[in-house]
């Protein structure tokens, strides 16, 4: 149910849209004075946000309006809250599904919970109306494995206080949200120290294999039922209400508004879960995969951490991931390359294996490793994946470097009477050093690039700001990671150019 996350990240974190309040307000003002005379002549346009539940609600509205004889079209998955909100005010769309908590926090920017009437009044100033609740509350929840909760006798979030040893994995934006982990922990006085940021979908895998014990979820999340999880009761009523409603332009025809009001109270949580499950079951996986990239994780920065400090932390972790995996690739790749250079079935098998690993998309490789017992959600997994990626260039270049040594020189070494080990160590490997080093350089650059994906499984690195920026559609944040990553790649390149001069024998560089 990872599609749900996007709603929150696009909507509530909202960076891009809210950084331009002045232009937005003038836009709003301009549109308020434009008479919408032709509203009934052209078809009504329903918008929806970029996640399953919003698609479904948008589709329901279109259907209902069409059934009432009102021509309606549905622009699916237009983006997050701010985009939909601006489109609504700009008249590009006439209505879209929204959640009350989101309206309070992101549109009205009101810190406290408001009544439906208060919200209606506030929205009225923008020329926007709101239906009543559609019947369900899609709020945050903490979930656990049912068996574990029963074993420990946990029923409410307050009960977590008694078990500081529990490991908690949270979506990155829940960690950062103003109504997310930090205030929740404060309100409940939760003692758990072992808290990591992890992608929503991977978090379910981690929960299933026991890498974590508690994670955040949405109360209509289909995975809760599918994975036999329990929702811990929010006994202190910490989470805001996220009642589903439709927002519409007040200028919409009364008939259309009536149809939208007619949807109130028709969808309870159980039904919504069911609809979400159905949509997920039949969804197009290609588009789901591309969505996956857009909405993946953001590791929580520590509160108040300065940028240089964060940058240092990201970069160090990045180098740690790329460096350690590269070291493994070198230690294992060169001997494999030596064996492969001798050809034969084993040589072919080695090169074949390394090539196959290279064809697995890095994301898929991570996803394949996560469920394995030794790996799970850890730095280990990231390093293992990077190690496997770094293998092919080193194995292949070692093998081809050795194979390129002229036969006459190989025979000269044999005829001299040098032992096989001496031949390899003093003659063949130095002669192949240029090729081997260029393989290592390729691996290093690949690793520096691919290591950005480690942030997906909470392993950190410069991928953190990149993914977080993608998540927020915030270019500045993307650049916070992308520029250092690019510089790092250049630095690695430069470092290996220097290393070439040290390690490649002078006689080969003439």
């Amino acid at each position: 149910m990872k599609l749900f996350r996007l709603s929150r990240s696009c909507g509530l974190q909202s960076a891009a849209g809210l950084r331009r309040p002045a232009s937005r307000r003038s836009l709003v003002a301009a549109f308020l004075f434009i008479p919408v005379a032709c509203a009934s002549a052209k078809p009504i346009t329903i918008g929806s946000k970029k996640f399953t539940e919003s698609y479904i609600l948008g589709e329901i509205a279109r259907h209902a309006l069409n059934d009432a004889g009102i021509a309606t079209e549905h622009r699916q998955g237009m983006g997050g809250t701010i985009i939909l909100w601006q489109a609504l005010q700009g008249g590009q769309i006439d209505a879209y599904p929204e959640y009350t908590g989101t309206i309070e926090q992101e549109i009205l920017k009101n810190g406290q919970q408001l009544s439906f009437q208060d919200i209606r009044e506030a929205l009225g100033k923008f020329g926007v109306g709101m239906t009543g609740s559609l019947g369900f509350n899609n709020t945050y929840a903490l979930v656990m494995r049912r068996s574990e909760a029963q074993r420990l006798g946990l029923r409410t979030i307050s009960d977590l206080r008694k078990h500081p040893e529990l490991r908690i994995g949270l979506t990155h934006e829940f960690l950062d949200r103003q109504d997310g982990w930090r205030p929740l922990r404060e309100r409940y006085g939760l003692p758990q120290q072992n808290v990591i940021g992890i992608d929503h979908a991977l978090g379910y895998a981690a929960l299933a294999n026991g890498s974590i014990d508690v994670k955040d979820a949405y109360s209509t999340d289909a995975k809760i039922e599918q994975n036999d999880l329990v929702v811990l009761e929010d006994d202190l009523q910490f989470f805001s209400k996220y009642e589903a409603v439709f927002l519409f332009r007040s200028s919409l025809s009364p008939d259309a508004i009536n149809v939208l009001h007619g949807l109130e109270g028709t969808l309870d949580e159980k039904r919504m879960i069911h609809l979400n499950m159905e949509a997920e079951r039949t969804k197009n996986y290609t588009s789901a995969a591309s969505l996956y990239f857009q909405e993946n994780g953001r590791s929580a920065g520590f509160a108040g951490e300065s940028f240089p400090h964060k940058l240092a932390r990201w970069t160090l972790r990045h180098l740690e991931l790329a460096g350690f995996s590269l070291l493994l690739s070198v230690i294992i790749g060169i001997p494999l390359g030596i064996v492969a250079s001798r050809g034969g079935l084993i040589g072919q098998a080695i090169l074949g294996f390394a090539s196959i690993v290279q064809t697995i998309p890095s994301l898929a490789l991570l996803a394949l490793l996560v469920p394995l017992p030794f790996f799970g959600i850890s730095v280990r997994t990231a390093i293992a994946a990077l190690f496997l990626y770094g293998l092919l260039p080193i194995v292949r270049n070692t093998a081809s470097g050795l194979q390129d040594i002229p036969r006459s020189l190989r025979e000269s070494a044999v005829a001299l009477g040098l032992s096989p080990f001496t031949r390899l160590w003093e003659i063949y490997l130095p002669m192949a050093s240029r090729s081997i080093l260029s393989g290592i350089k390729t691996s290093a650059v690949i690793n520096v690039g691919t290591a950005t994906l480690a942030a997906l499984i909470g392993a950190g690195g410069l991928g953190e700001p990149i993914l977080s920026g993608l998540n927020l559609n915030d270019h500045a944040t993307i650049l916070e990671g992308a520029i250092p990553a690019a510089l790092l790649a250049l630095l690695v390149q430069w470092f290996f150019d220097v290393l070439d001069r040290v390690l490649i024998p002078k006689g080969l560089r003439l």
Partner: protein
Amino acid sequence: MSALVKLVDVSKLYAGATALHSTNLSIERGKTTVLIGPSGCGKSTLLRLIIRLIEPDSGSIEFNGEPITSDTISALRRRIGYVIQEGGLFPHLTAHSNVLLMARHIGKSEDEMQSRLVDLCQLTRFPENLLSRYPLELSGGQRQRVGLMRALMLLPELLLLDEPLDALDPLVRASLQKDLKEIFARLQQTVVFVTHDLAEAAYFGDEIVLMNNGRIVQKGSVTDLREKPAEPFVSEFINAQRGVMLA
């Protein structure tokens, strides 16, 4: 004079084709035996069989009365010098390191190696100040002299040269031929020299072994070959290179 190397019924197949038919040959001590013949006649194959870069399919090869086998060859290789075109120098090592490579490997003392190196430079007329250069910084003739020094470093009983002068221009080649002949004579070196150049063969050869199609066609002096050809091919081969002979 007993034979240093003796090939008895040695044959070699390459990919199903016969590279060397069953062959008998004795290499006499202190003499230069030249293997000559057209490309693919089996002369290099024969040389490579002696140093066991390839294994014979049948027959046996004796060195000093002992059969050469896979077990004994490692030790024997130190008693055999092997020189190929361009010297077969390792490009990542200086001339100095190339020459001393094997001596260092078997733990000779620095003093011993140094004095041997000085001797070799004189013998091969290689300027000592060029020893620190890498192969790519040397001329073809200089590389060949370094290759020769490397082969002679451990005082080998047998020196094998596989078309050693082929990549050199005529002037350098002539001067190296002269130097080589003097060296062989001074060391009373047992040499097997592979070439396809009849003039070179005549210049070096105490005994010339003419080969064709994986067989030894005739053994003897160049005069023997010219005046008592064993078969028409011998005359054909000699006539084809007459121009060189006259020059």
